[in-house]
Each structure stands twice: as C-alpha cells, then as structure tokens.
C-alpha cells in the first residue's frame, strides 16, 4: 500500500476511535450508574433507553456561552482544555490493538515511556485551568491535582517498569509479543497498582479529591462553561479509554486470548478494555471519596512499597527462569 495513504488511514482510524470511544464509555457510565443505583435517569430522548441523551447533552454544551472570568489569565484559561485533551490522542496512537505492526497507529520504540510521559503532560491542563481561573476553589483543585500526580506517577512508572523487565523490552508491541499466560499471576500485584494509580491520575472516584464537587465545586473546572467544560469531561473519558487500553496491553495480554486469537486479536483487546472500563464505572458507584491525606497515604505507604515488591519479584523470577 502507498505509504502516505497508509499513514493517513491509521491517523484517521485513531482519530475516529478517539472521538467515539470516550462517548461510548460516557454513555455506558450513565446507564450502568442508573441501574446500579436504581434510578431512572433520562429515558425518553430518542426512544430506546434514552440513547439520544448524549447527543442532546452535546448540543446543550455547544449552545452555552463561553465565559472567561474577568480576572482570569485569558490565554492560559482558553488553552487549558486543549492541553488536557490532546495528550490522550497522542497516547492512543501508540496503543496496539492486534498482533503485528498493522494494528497499531505508530510503533514507538520506547512505547511504555512514551505513553506514561505524554499522559503526565495532560495533567498540566488541569493545573493551568486551576491557576488561570482566578478562583480560590480552582486554585485548591489545581494544588490537589499536582499533589496527586506527584504521588501516583511513581507507582505507575514502577509497575510499568516491572512489565518491561519481564518482557525485556519497553516497546508496547514487543511486550505483547513476549506475553505468556502465566504473566497474569506473576504480575497481578503490579496490574492492580497500575490500575489504581491510573485511576488516581485521571482523578476518577474514589480519587476525585481535585474535583470534589461537594467541597471545592469541581476544583479546577469551576469557572468553565460550554464547550471548554465539555472538552475537560471528554478528556476524562478519553483518559479512561487510554488507561483501560494500557492496562490491557501491559498486564492482561492485549490481543492474546484463550482461543481464536487468529484474526480476532482486536476483539480480545476491546473486550478486556471494555471490562476494565466497566470496573472503572463500578468503582465510581461503589466507593466514597477518599480524604486528601488518605489519598497521599495510600500512594506512599501502600502502592509504592507494593510496586517495589513487584519489581523485586519480577527480577527474582526473571533470573531464576533464565
């Protein structure tokens, strides 16, 4: 196939995934939460189960006035949603969904480092929003975001390093090629730590101290309205897609499946990621929000030691089986 056409096609597919999957997760969240909490929610828009409510929400966001507070730092305030959203698009480029080089947007040699580095950049968007809003609640939200990122980046990186040690490569494609089924019990602690730390980095409940709508009024996003606010929401759901995809690729074997992996690898990837996304929603419905000090304590006294133990275990097993 023509090279330029190939690249364009890949970018297009990744872009479409980036536009649709977060919305699908969002819609699923509405419905799953409604069922779990025994509440009806909007059921009329569009007919069956209120499927068009998401479209209506989008139209509503687009119609709202885009307000910038008088004392805000105008340019940074307006730039922040883009900084929050775009890194996830870049990360999606590097996540392989199937075997071979045909099923990934762009093969990145140091894939693990690439995805974690770029995901960290997205948090800058929340920091910029929190600072530039000229609002004390927003500033508190920004502070909490920064503290949370600093605490949870480390366990995430350490557990990802554990998988990289096991596979002997930091390329996401290479890690999947080296995957064996017994990695699952071997790396299970790392998987849990990675997933929990990822949830915290996305500021999802129960780790949503930085947005905490009932105490600091949505933190960094207090002053945002209309489309810019919608972009922050979209960033959160894109983050869920990216986190679930990464956990699938790093710890759950991605396109490997118990049977029928030929040609159907991408189905396995999507299935595993979808189950994880369901767990993300489930956790939001189930657990109350942690307090700020509990949040820090969980990371520094539990997740970091656990991930270090996982690295030690990985190293020992790796040396023994060689």
């Amino acid at each position, binding site marked *: 196939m023509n090279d330029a056409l190939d690249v364009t096609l890949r970018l297009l597919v990744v872009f479409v995934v980036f536009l649709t999957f977060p919305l699908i997760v969002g819609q699923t969240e509405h419905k799953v939460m409604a069922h779990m909490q025994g509440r009806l929610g909007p059921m009329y828009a569009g007919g069956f189960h209120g499927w068009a409510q998401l479209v209506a*929400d989008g139209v509503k966001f687009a119609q709202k006035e885009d307000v910038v507070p008088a004392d805000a730092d105008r340019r940074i305030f307006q730039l922040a949603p883009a900084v929050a959203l775009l890194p996830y698009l870049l990360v999606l480029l590097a996540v392989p969904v199937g075997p071979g080089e045909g099923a990934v947007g762009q093969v990145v040699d140091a894939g693990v480092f690439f995805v974690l*580095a770029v995901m960290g950049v997205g948090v800058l968007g929340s920091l910029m929003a929190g600072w530039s809003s*000229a609002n004390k609640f927003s500033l508190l939200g*920004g*502070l909490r975001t920064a503290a949370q990122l600093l605490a949870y980046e480390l366990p995430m990186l350490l557990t990802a390093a554990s998988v990289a040690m096991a596979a002997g490569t930091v390329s996401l494609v290479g890690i999947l090629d080296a995957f064996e089924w017994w990695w699952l019990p071997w790396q299970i602690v790392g998987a849990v730590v990675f997933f929990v730390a990822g949830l915290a980095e996305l500021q999802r409940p129960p780790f949503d101290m930085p947005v905490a709508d009932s105490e600091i009024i949505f933190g960094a996003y207090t002053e945002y309205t209309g489309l810019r606010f919608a972009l922050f929401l979209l960033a959160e759901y894109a983050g869920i897609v990216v986190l679930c995809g990464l956990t699938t690729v790093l710890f759950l074997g991605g396109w490997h499946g118990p049977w029928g992996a030929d040609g159907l690898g991408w189905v396995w990837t999507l299935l595993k990621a979808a189950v994880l996304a369901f767990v993300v929603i489930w956790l939001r419905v189930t657990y109350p929000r942690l307090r700020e000090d509990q949040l820090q304590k969980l990371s520094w006294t539990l997740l970091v030691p656990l991930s270090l133990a996982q690295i030690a275990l990985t190293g020992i097993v790796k040396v023994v089986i060689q």
Partner: protein
Amino acid sequence: MTPAATVGHLTASAYPTTTAAGSHGFLSPTGVEIAFLLVGLVTFGAAVITVTTRQLVHAALWLVVALGGLAVEYLLLTAEFIAWVQVLIYVGAVVVLILFGLMLTRAPIGRSPDADSGNRWAALTVAVASAAALVWVVVDAFRTTWIDLDGPAAGSTAVTGASLFQNWVLPFEALSVLLLAALVGAIVLSRKVKAARAGEAPRAGTRAAGAPESPSRAARTSESPSRAARTSESGASRSASSHPGDSRTDGAR
C-alpha cells in the same frame, strides 16, 4: 547539569559514527537539519522568555515549551529513549513540582513587580560562562562525529541501555549514589524543621494551607470592580440560561 542531559552525553559517544571528511558537506542542509535549527530557535526563544517574563506561572509554562523543544531535538537526533525520558521527568514531574510550589506559596495572575533580582548581571555572567564552557566541551569532543540519520535508530532503547550499562556503568552508579544522598539529605532537613517547629508552636504547620491567596491578587481583585461588573452584565444580557451551576448538574456528574 541535568541527569537526562548527562545521559545524552554518555550515549552520544556510542552512536555509529562516520568522520566528517567524506560524505558530509559542511553547509548542505537536509530537511532534518533545517527542522533541528527551527526547533532550536523556538527552544531558545522559550528559554529566554522563561527568564525574562515578569509573570511567574508564565515562566513555568514557557519552561514546558523549552523542555519540550529539547525533547523534539533529541527525537530529531534519533535519541528516542532520551526524548521520552526528558518529557517524563522534566515536563511531567519537575514542571509540575514547580507549579505546585508556586501555587502553594504565591502565584498571582499578572505581573509580579518583585520578580526582578538585583543579581541579574551576575546571573547573566555565570549563565553565559557556563554555556560557553559546555558548548566548548561538546564541540571539542564531538567535532568529527556525525550521526547517521538514515540508518537504524542510533539512540534506541537497546543501544542506550547497552552503552549505559557496559561502557558507562561506573558514572551511572556514581550518579545513583549522588541522588540517594540528596534524597536522604532532603528527608533529614525536613525532619529537623518539623521537630523544631513542633517544639515552639504545635499547630504552626497548618498555616500553610491557607496561604495560596497572595496579597497582590487580593489587591487586584479589589481594584477592578468595574471590570467584573461589566462582565457579569454582558453575561446576563447575552444568555439567561447559562448558569454555571446547571452545566455541572445535568452533565455526566
């Protein structure tokens, strides 16, 4: 010098290299070289703005541009691993730490009149001297070394790792010990301060939480009631339905 940059120096010598004599003309720019130059200019400009702007948080954000530009330069030199580590450590952690520190202490919107230092000329002299020393050392060390941009990636993770842990393992470990010492030192310092503070005033530590609002911002807010009033007027007249509250309640939350 920064750890990532040091790693960059260490690995540079492991690139498969050719001498300048034969295949490379001195002034025959290729696309990559032009891109390198342009990104370099952007990086330099961002760095200059970082140290000259009067707005503290803007300085931190321009630092993001400068460090990101540096990462792109690494990429253009095929040092992919170093580039992503640069983004991970500097943009993802160091700048976030700087922003955290600024927000915790003072981060006024607008100019900080006291952001100037009397030491600016001394600082400029030291900066120019250290830059000159670094440029001289690097130019002298790699004068005849060329990176083959078309061949296999010379800065891939495998190559970097091999050279780091085979040829340069002693400096690497020495650096680790240095970082460990810094870590231990930081903990010792913070514990001493805490103990001293606990001795004189039991609840003194909690004051920091109330500090983010800086005096200068409070002054600005009280100075500009007319601007605020104007905005709220126009907001109310343009769209009666845009209460900030309802966008949150009927959205996903």
